[in-house]
C-alpha cells in the first residue's frame, strides 16, 4: 500500500500527493490515522474528505491507503447496536474515549470475539449460489440471522460445513473451489446489494396511525417523505412509526439530528416493548446516530451505512423499515462538502448531482425477490426539513420526484395541537390504488367507500370553511352546517391521535374502520333528522356525539362503541 503526504488542509477537506487509491477508497490521514475517503483525483493530487475533525493536521503528515472503499461490516451482532455515521458503535467509542468523542479511534462495527452458534441448513455436497442461506444463527430471541453466501460469489458445491460455536471471522463452510465462508460480510456502503427482481407494492405497511393507514397508506417496500419545517412534529411522527410499523427490523438513521433527541431515543428505545411480541423493541432495531455537531463527512456517509444494513436484513427475507431523519441534513452535508471542494454550485448552492444522489438512495428501497429465494423489503421514510417550510426548495422537490407517499406535516395543525399533524388535503399516497384490493379483501369491503366518503366531506368542509370565514357558520344552510360538524368530528375524533396516550397511540385496522363508520353513521342520522325537521342545534347536542369522542381511548372499544351507537340511535329517535 502506498503512503502519501498531506499537501493542504482546509476544514474537513484534505489534499494529498503520492497516492494510488481509487475513488471512494478509505484512507487514513495524518499521524493519528483519521478515517477519510477519496472524493476526487486530479493530476497527482487526491482530494480527501475526513470523517473526523482535522484540527492540528499539518502538511507533510502521512496518508495511508487501505485498498478498499468504505464498507459496512455485516454479520450477527448488528441488531441492538447504536452506531455513528460510519458504523462505529457509540458505546465502544465511549469506552475508548469517554463522554466526548475523540479522534482517530478504530472500532469494529460488530464484535469479532463473540461466539455465535451456527446451525447449518445445507449439507456437504449441496450446490449453493450467491446469496443463498447456508445456515442460521439465533441473533436475538425472536430474530434468526441467516448466514448467506456473499452476493457476487460464484458459489459451488459445499465441501465442508461445520455446526457449533464460531466467531464471525472463523470459517463455517468451505466450497469445492476452496473458498471459505465466514459469518462476516463486508459490503461497500455506496453500492446497492443485488436482488433477483423488485416487486409491485401491493401489501400495506401497517402503522396503526389512522390518518396514514386510513387515508395515505404506505406499501411495504415503499418510499415516503415527511416534509415539515421545524416544529411540525416530524420527529415524533418518525419515532411513532419506528415503534408501531409492522416490520421485522427497524433501522433508524439520525442524520444531523439533535443530541438531546438522540439521547431521548436511545433512552426510550431500549425501554419500548414490542406490542406484538412483548420483547424489547431494541432487539430488532439498529440505530445510526450522527448528531449535527459530529463530523460532516460522517453525516454524509450515515445514510449509506444505514441503507446497506437495511438491505442486508432484507436479503434474509425480512421486512425492514429505514427511517432517515433527516435527508435535508444529509443534503446539507453534501452541499457543505461541495462548497469546500469549490465545486460549481447548482440551485441554492446544492451540488448539481443532488437529484441523482437522492434518486440513487430512494431506488435502493423496495420489496424484492431476494437471492435467497424468499421475499424481503426495505421501506424508506425520509424526512425533509425545507428551510422556512418552503416546499419549492431543491431537496424537497427532488425528493418528491422520487417518493410515492407524501405526508404533509402542517405547522398550523401543530399550533392547534392536532397530532399527527398531517394535513389531510395536501398529503397523498400513490400506492392508494395498488393497496385498495388488500383492504377490501382483508379488512372490510366498505373500506374504500367509507374512505372516499370521509375524504369528500373533508374536501367540502375546506370549501365551506372559507365561506364561514366570511359570513360565519350560522349563515350556512342547515345541511352544510351538519357537514361542518361531521368534518369536525372526523378531524377531532378520528384524524387526531395521541402518541402519548397508551391506547390511542396504536389503532388496529378494524378499530380504524369501526370508528370512521360510526362517525359516518352519525352523519346519516343527522341528515335524516334534518329532513324530519329537527334543528342543527338539537342534532349537535346529542350526547352520544360527545361520548363517541372518547371511544378511541378504550382498548376494549367494541362494547363501548356498541353502547354509544345504541344510545345514539335512541337519542336521535327521541328528538322532537
Amino acid at each position, binding site marked *: 500500500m502506498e503512503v502519501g503526504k498531506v499537501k493542504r488542509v482546509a476544514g474537513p477537506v484534505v489534499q494529498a500527493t503520492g497516492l494510488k487509491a481509487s475513488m471512494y477508497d478509505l484512507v487514513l490521514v495524518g499521524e493519528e490515522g483519521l478515517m477519510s475517503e477519496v472524493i476526487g483525483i486530479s493530476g497527482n493530487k487526491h482530494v480527501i474528505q475526513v470523517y473526523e475533525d482535522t484540527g492540528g493536521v499539518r502538511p507533510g503528515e502521512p496518508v495511508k491507503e487501505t485498498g478498499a472503499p468504505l464498507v459496512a461490516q455485516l454479520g450477527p451482532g448488528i441488531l441492538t447496536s447504536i452506531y455513528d455515521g460510519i458504523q462505529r458503535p457509540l458505546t465502544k467509542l465511549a469506552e475508548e474515549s469517554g463522554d466526548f468523542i475523540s479522534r482517530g479511534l478504530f472500532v469494529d462495527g460488530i464484535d469479532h470475539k463473540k461466539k455465535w452458534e451456527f446451525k447449518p441448513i445445507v449439507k456437504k455436497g449441496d450446490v449453493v449460489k450467491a446469496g443463498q442461506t447456508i445456515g442460521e444463527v439465533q441473533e436475538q430471541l425472536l430474530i434468526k440471522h441467516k448466514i448467506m453466501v456473499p452476493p457476487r460469489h460464484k458459489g459451488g458445491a459445499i465441501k465442508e460445513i461445520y455446526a457449533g460455536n464460531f466467531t464471525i471471522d472463523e470459517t463455517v463452510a468451505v466450497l469445492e473451489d476452496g473458498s471459505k465462508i465466514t459469518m462476516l460480510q463486508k459490503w461497500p456502503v455506496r453500492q446497492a446489494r443485488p436482488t433477483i427482481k423488485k416487486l409491485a407494492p401491493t401489501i400495506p405497511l401497517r402503522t396503526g396511525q389512522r390518518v396514514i393507514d386510513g387515508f395515505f397508506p404506505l406499501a411495504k417496500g415503499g418510499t415516503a417523505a415527511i416534509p415539515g419545517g421545524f416544529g411540525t412534529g416530524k420527529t415524533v411522527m418518525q419515532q411513532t412509526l419506528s415503534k408501531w410499523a409492522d416490520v421485522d427490523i427497524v433501522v433508524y438513521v439520525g442524520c444531523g439530528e439533535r*443530541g438531546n433527541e438522540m439521547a431521548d431515543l436511545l433512552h426510550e428505545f431500549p425501554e419500548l416493548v414490542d406490542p406484538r411480541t412483548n420483547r424489547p423493541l431494541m432487539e430488532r432495531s439498529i440505530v445510526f446516530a450522527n448528531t449535527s455537531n459530529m463530523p460532516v463527512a460522517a453525516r454524509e456517509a450515515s445514510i449509506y451505512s444505514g441503507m446497506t444494513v437495511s438491505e442486508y436484513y432484507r436479503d434474509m427475507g425480512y421486512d425492514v423499515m429505514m427511517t432517515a431523519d433527516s435527508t435535508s441534513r444529509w443534503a446539507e452535508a453534501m452541499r457543505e462538502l461541495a462548497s469546500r471542494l469549490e465545486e460549481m454550485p447548482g440551485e441554492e448552492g446544492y451540488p448539481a448531482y443532488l437529484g441523482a444522489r437522492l434518486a440513487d438512495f430512494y431506488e435502493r428501497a423496495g420489496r424484492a425477490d431476494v437471492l435467497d429465494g424468499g421475499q424481503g423489503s426495505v421501506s424508506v421514510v425520509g424526512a425533509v426539513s425545507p428551510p422556512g417550510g418552503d416546499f419549492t426548495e431543491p431537496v424537497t422537490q427532488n425528493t418528491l420526484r422520487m417518493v410515492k407517499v407524501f405526508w404533509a406535516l402542517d405547522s398550523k395543525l401543530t399550533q392547534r395541537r392536532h397530532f399527527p399533524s398531517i394535513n389531510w388535503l395536501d398529503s397523498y399516497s400513490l400506492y392508494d390504488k395498488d393497496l385498495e384490493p388488500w383492504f377490501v379483501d382483508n379488512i372490510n369491503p366498505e373500506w374504500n367507500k367509507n374512505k372516499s366518503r370521509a375524504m369528500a366531506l373533508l374536501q367540502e368542509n375546506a370549501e365551506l370553511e372559507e365561506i364561514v*370565514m366570511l359570513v*360565519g357558520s350560522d349563515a350556512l344552510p342547515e345541511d352544510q352546517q351538519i357537514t361542518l360538524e361531521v368534518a369536525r368530528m372526523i378531524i377531532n375524533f378520528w384524524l387526531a391521535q395521541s402518541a402519548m396516550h397508551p391506547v390511542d397511540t396504536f389503532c388496529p385496522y378494524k378499530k380504524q374502520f369501526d370508528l370512521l363508520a360510526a362517525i359516518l353513521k352519525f352523519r346519516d342520522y343527522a341528515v335524516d333528522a334534518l329532513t324530519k325537521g329537527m334543528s342543527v342545534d338539537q342534532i349537535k347536542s346529542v350526547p352520544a356525539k360527545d361520548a363517541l369522542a372518547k371511544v378511541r381511548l378504550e382498548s376494549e372499544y367494541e362494547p363501548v362503541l356498541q353502547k354509544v351507537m345504541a344510545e345514539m340511535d335512541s337519542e336521535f329517535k327521541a328528538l322532537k
Partner: protein
Amino acid sequence: MTKEYKTITEIKGPLIFVEKTEPVGYNELVEIRTGGELKRGQVLDTSDEIVVVQVFEGTGGLSKDSAVTFTGDVIKMPLSPSIIGRVLSGSGRPRDGGPEIVPEVLREIAGAAINPACREKPRAFIQTGISTIDGTNTLVRGQKLPIFSGAGLPHNDVALQIARQAKTLGEAESFAVIFCAMGITNEEAQHFLADFERTGALERAVVFLNLADDPAVERILTPRLGLTTAEYLAFDLDMHVLIIYTDMTNYCESLRQMGAAREEVPGRRGYPGYMYTDLAIQYERAGIIRGKKGSITQFPILTMPGDDITHPIPDLSGYITEGQIIVSRELHRKGIYPPIDIRPSLSRLMNSGIGKGHTREDHRAVSDQLYAYYAEGNDLRGLAAIVGKEALSERDKLVLEFADKFEKRFVNQGRDEDRTIFETLQIGWDLLADLPESMLTRIDDKFIKVYHPKYAGAAKATEAPKK
C-alpha cells in the same frame, strides 16, 4: 515551534497570508507581534506554500514586517474556579481591571462532540416564573431554547427575567450564569451588567463582552470561550450552568464576513455553506452527561432580520435547537409583557419535563387545551373583524373572549412577577372554567373532576371540616 516568520505576503480584511513556513497545523493558534502589541489568530487553511490566518483582534496596525509565530497548539482557554464573577472580553481577556485568570486547566475551545450514547435525557423541569414558558413551552435542564425576536422588542428583559428566576422545584443546587455578548451595544451591555449587579447575580456569573465596536472576528471566539467555560463549570465543578448569548445574528454576520474575505462560494443569502454545522457545534454543547452532576442549558437570543423567521439564521437555528420562544411585535404593541406568542413557540423537550413527578399530572392536557382555543380564538379575530362579533355563534364568541382573556391574564405578567408552575396552571384552569365543560375535549374527565375550579372548590369544601 517558536520560530518567528516575517513572511506575510498579503493582508486582506481579517486575514493574513503567510508564505514559506514549516508545516503548520490546521486550526493552530498563531501569535502576531507588531510594535509592542500581541494579536492572536487561527489557521484556516494550510498547505506547503501558504498559510491563511484569521486574526481575532483585527488586522489594523499589521504590516508585512509583523512577526508571526505558530504556536504548534490549538487555542485553549485558561480555567479555574476563580473565573466565576469575572467580566472578560470577547477573546477571554480581563475586562474588569482584574488579573489574568490563573489556569488550573487549559481546555481546547473547539470542543469535541458529546457521544450521544453518553448523554442523559434532559427531564428536570426548570421553573422560569413566566407562564408562557412554564405552562405552555416548558424549559428543561440541558435544553437549548432560543429566543427569536426582532429589533426593538424586549427580548433582553425576558432573558434577564429568566436568568433571575430560573430554578428547579425543591432543591437548592449550585448554579452559574454565563453571559456572552456578541456585537451588542455598550448601552445594552450596561443594562445587563447593571441588572446582574442589582440582583447579585454577578457573583455567580461569568461575562464575556464583545461589543459592537470590538473586532467582528473576535465574535467567532466568544461563544466558544463561553461554552468551554460552561463545560468546565458543569462537568468539572458539578454546577448547573445557564448560558445566555446575544445576539447570534451578529455571530453569523461575522461568519459571513469571514467567508467573504476567504472568497468562499457563498450559500443562502451569502452566508457560508458550513453555517449549519458551525451553529450546530455551538448549540449542541448543551446537555447533560450520564453520571455527571452538572448540566448546560442554553438561551441563545437572535434577532430575526425583518422579523423573517425563514431567514437562514433563525431557520438553521430552529433545526438544531429544541424549540423556540417567539417574541411577537403584535403582542408588544398591545402592551403585553412578556410579548411571547405561544402559537409558533415550541419546546421540544416539554413532554419529558412535565406531568406527574415533574410538575402536575394535568399539565399536558391543560396546555393543549389552552393552545387549541387560543389558536382558534386568534383565527376568529379575523372573522370578527369582517362580520362583526355579533354574527358569531355563541361558541365562537366564547372562544374569542377566551383568546383576549388569555393574553391579558395568562401571557401578561410583571417584569418581576415570579409565578410558580401551580399558579400558572391555576390561571389556565380559571380561564378554561369560563368555557362550558363539554368544550374541554382535550382534558381527561379525571383531571376535570380534580382540578376544574368547579370541582376543586367542592373538594376543598369537603376537606375543610376535617381540620
